[in-house]
């Protein structure tokens, strides 16, 4: 193997921030090289420099021993460096083939696209690297995993020899992650080089040939997976230890807060999306919901929040039937809700933080007296959240969009826990946030549990479920197939339940 990319002493400053300094990185040809680090550690800036989106202030990048200076991603592409973005750069309303060829269309005279030639080339690439893509499908019909394969096919079509993947597994369900890893191995077996950015230590250890750790804008270590372990990597990333489970000595009380009894729910096309679901969350208990994404988790939350109406069964909170109430009334009865998509459902991105504090609390004290919104109370309470949850922001008057994902999420967690709700529904509370924010959010959830809050935790992160939950319910095809004790459950049992086996 030879060094294909050699980064020497890169520095990049933005007004008020040093994004990268003294960054050194060596990547060997044909390897899978992982770059890990907390949010804000400078990984994204480094990637932008590598694929030509931004130019470094000083330092140099060598590719195959030659110094390069890219003016645009197209320059980088010409030297074989291609980026697979986390938020896919695809047009839904166009076919796979159209998306793949955009920017490097094979044309005959007059700019007419030779679709047949393009289709053949794409199918050859798909065949060679084992990427299952169908050229004539509309992208809007594709699932997330398929979209990612299209993105990969896209950079391969343009001749990439070095692929940069930005958190490729963040949006995938476990089976898709497995398929992706097989694809990546296939690519390296053909001599391609993969750089991938990740938060997930397990994946990095399982997949990468070498790992570079970044912290606060610089590279702190390069290690090989066989010489390290999760604890050490986490330590390198955060400079501390991984969060531990809080006090488990206290047991939940027997007093039910939320209980669903034989709840069923039909989609408009009469498909059953929830089927005879019965579960109870007690005071001071965290009930975890595990399951492969798309098996009724979102619908479960939406029925509890009154967003979709149930067809049979009852839902009660503190023995009050809420199945006929509106979302507003349900929230006012003491329910906090951390939605899974913070940017879509949790925040107004273009509104200041203190206005975001009002969302969902616009009719309850202290924010409101029932008619007028109390601006100063909202501001005071925003300050409290920023302080208590260590939300890193210059002030509460900046737009939510200005915060990093982890800080946005911390703000939401603080907001939804304010006023000590009886019940907190937390859906993917730490998805896509850095280790520091994750540990803080976990500790907040544990504290809330100790103070007697009932928490329904929906997550696709097994570490999270096992670390926090008192009990685990597994959902599959809209049914609760098992309720497990996290202390005694084995991964095999869980895996079986998630694939729908009764245990």
């Amino acid at each position, binding site marked *: 193997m030879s060094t294909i990319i050699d980064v020497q002493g890169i520095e990049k400053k933005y007004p008020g921030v040093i994004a990268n300094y003294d960054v050194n990185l060596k990547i060997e040809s044909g390897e899978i090289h992982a770059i890990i680090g907390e949010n804000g550690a400078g990984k994204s800036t480094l990637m932008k420099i590598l694929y030509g989106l931004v130019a470094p202030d000083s330092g140099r990048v060598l590719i195959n021993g030659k110094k390069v200076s890219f003016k645009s*991603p197209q320059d980088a592409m010409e030297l074989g460096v291609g980026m697979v973005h986390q938020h896919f750069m695809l047009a839904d309303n166009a076919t796979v083939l159209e998306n793949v060829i955009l920017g490097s269309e094979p044309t005959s005279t007059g700019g007419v696209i030779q679709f047949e030639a393009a289709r053949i080339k794409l199918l050859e690439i798909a065949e060679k690297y084992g990427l299952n893509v169908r050229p004539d499908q509309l992208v809007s019909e594709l699932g997330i995993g398929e979209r990612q394969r299209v993105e990969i096919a896209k950079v391969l079509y343009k001749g990439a020899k070095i692929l940069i993947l930005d958190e490729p597994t963040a949006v995938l369900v476990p089976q898709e992650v497995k398929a992706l890893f097989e694809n990546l191995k296939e690519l390296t077996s053909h001599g391609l080089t993969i750089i991938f950015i990740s938060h997930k230590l397990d994946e990095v250890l399982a997949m990468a040939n070498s790992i570079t750790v970044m912290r606060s804008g610089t590279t702190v270590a390069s290690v090989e997976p066989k010489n390290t372990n999760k604890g050490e990597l986490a330590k390198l990333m955060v400079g501390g230890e991984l969060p531990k489970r809080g006090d488990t000595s206290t047991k939940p009380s027997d007093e039910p807060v939320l209980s669903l009894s034989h709840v069923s729910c039909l989609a408009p096309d009469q498909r059953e999306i929830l089927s005879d679901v019965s579960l109870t969350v007690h005071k001071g208990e965290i009930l975890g919901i595990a399951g492969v994404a798309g098996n009724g988790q979102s619908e479960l939350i939406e029925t509890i929040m009154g967003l979709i109406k149930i067809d049979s069964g009852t839902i009660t909170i503190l023995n009050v039937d809420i199945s006929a109430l509106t979302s507003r009334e349900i929230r006012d009865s003491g329910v906090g809700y951390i939605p899974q998509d913070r940017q879509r459902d949790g925040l107004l991105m273009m509104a200041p933080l203190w206005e975001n504090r009002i969302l969902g609390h616009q009719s309850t004290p202290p924010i409101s007296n029932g008619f007028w919104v109390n601006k100063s109370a909202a501001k005071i309470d925003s300050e409290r959240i920023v302080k208590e949850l260590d939300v890193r922001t210059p002030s509460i008057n900046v737009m939510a969009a200005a915060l990093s994902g982890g800080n946005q999420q911390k703000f939401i967690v603080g907001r939804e826990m304010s006023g000590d709700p009886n019940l907190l529904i937390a859906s993917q509370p730490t998805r896509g946030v850095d280790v520091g924010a994750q540990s803080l959010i976990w500790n907040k959830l544990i504290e809330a549990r100790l103070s007697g809050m009932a928490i329904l935790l929906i997550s696709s992160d097994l570490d999270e479920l096992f670390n926090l939950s008192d009990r685990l319910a597994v959902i599959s095809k809209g049914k609760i197939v098992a309720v497990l004790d996290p202390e005694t459950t084995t991964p095999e049992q869980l895996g079986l339940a998630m694939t729908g086996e009764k245990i």
Partner: protein
Amino acid sequence: MTDLLNSFLRNRWVRKIASPSRFTLFVVALLIIVSTVRRITGAADITSAGLSGATLRFTIPLLMAGLGGLWAERSGVINIGLEGMMIAGTWLGAWFAFIYGPWVGFLAAAIGGAVIGLFHGILVVRIGIDQAVSGLAINILALGAARYLSGILFPSRGGDISLSPVVEQTPTLTVPGISPLLGSIADKNIFLLSDGAGILSGFVTEISYATILLLLAVPLSTWILWKTKFGLRLRFCGENPVAAESLGVKVYRMRYMALAISGMFASVGGAYLSLVASQVYREGQTGGRGFIGLATVIFGNWRPSGVLAGSVLFGVTDALRIRQPTSIHAALLVVIIAGSIYVIWAFATGRMKHGVRALMATSFIGLIYLTVPEIPREFVSFFPNLATILVLVLLAQRLKPPAMLAVPYREREETE
């Protein structure tokens, strides 16, 4: 089962085979209904060459405005200024046709429209002015400019401030052999055959060369937008400009070009009004056709063939409006019969909800038919708008507007 049927219908080959034959079936069925209605009501006009010819003349300006809207929207920019661009076209067309003849009139309108389109582009793409505001400004500006220039130029040449002098007619084509043949069949009063011949003869008798040329804009637009590199890149600017730019597409430049083409089409549509549909520029001649053009884009699901269908629908009603009231009444009967057939078909295929809704609508129109002897012309001109609203309500799920339509886009700064 419905899933299976849907996936079957969505299949590329099935679509290719099914759609032309379905279209033919639809046309034949409509012809039978129309012929029957003519028999029953005696409203001879509804299958006459006069009505079909007028429909064609009313369709073209709407089609041009619609294609103008389509080009702009496919690149991600809404062109509310279509109406103003049409006004510019009517005026420029008439003035240059008066001096140099009709073809120069069309050319001048095309160039002028492209310039105004570019102006809209600079305002919304580069400067970032709200797309609706810029469009409305163009509408107002064009109206005022046309009146101002008319006041200076027309009175001394036989017109006045709101009317141009009469211009030369564009050359027309009457297909030799076929046109007289169809005419003679139409006069024989044979059921179906004469009716079909009557309608067809409107399309081959004294048809302007401009009409033929402009109809070609439909396949041409489809071909450019879906088969060429330019078209693919232009569409991506409307779907995902961030992705397009990351792959080296100059988003601003593509949008400028799309808006120039958009303005050109709208303006040529205006010139058609003043050079072919009449031979004079009149103030207010466009009568809101630019806005109807926007509606045909939605009706046509952002596809040129769909825009054509929408324009024909609006064109027919436009033509009906200026003809005999009996034709309007008869046209109502056509709608009722077509509606009844749909009701039966819906019930037969087990789609009760659709059937009941269609039954109610048809009964309502039936009631009007029986109780109102003369339909107000205003209602007729409103009908296509109603149809567009219905399309929006009923087919909203299937409409596929460009994903980033009307969302302003900033190109990345050099230094990030």
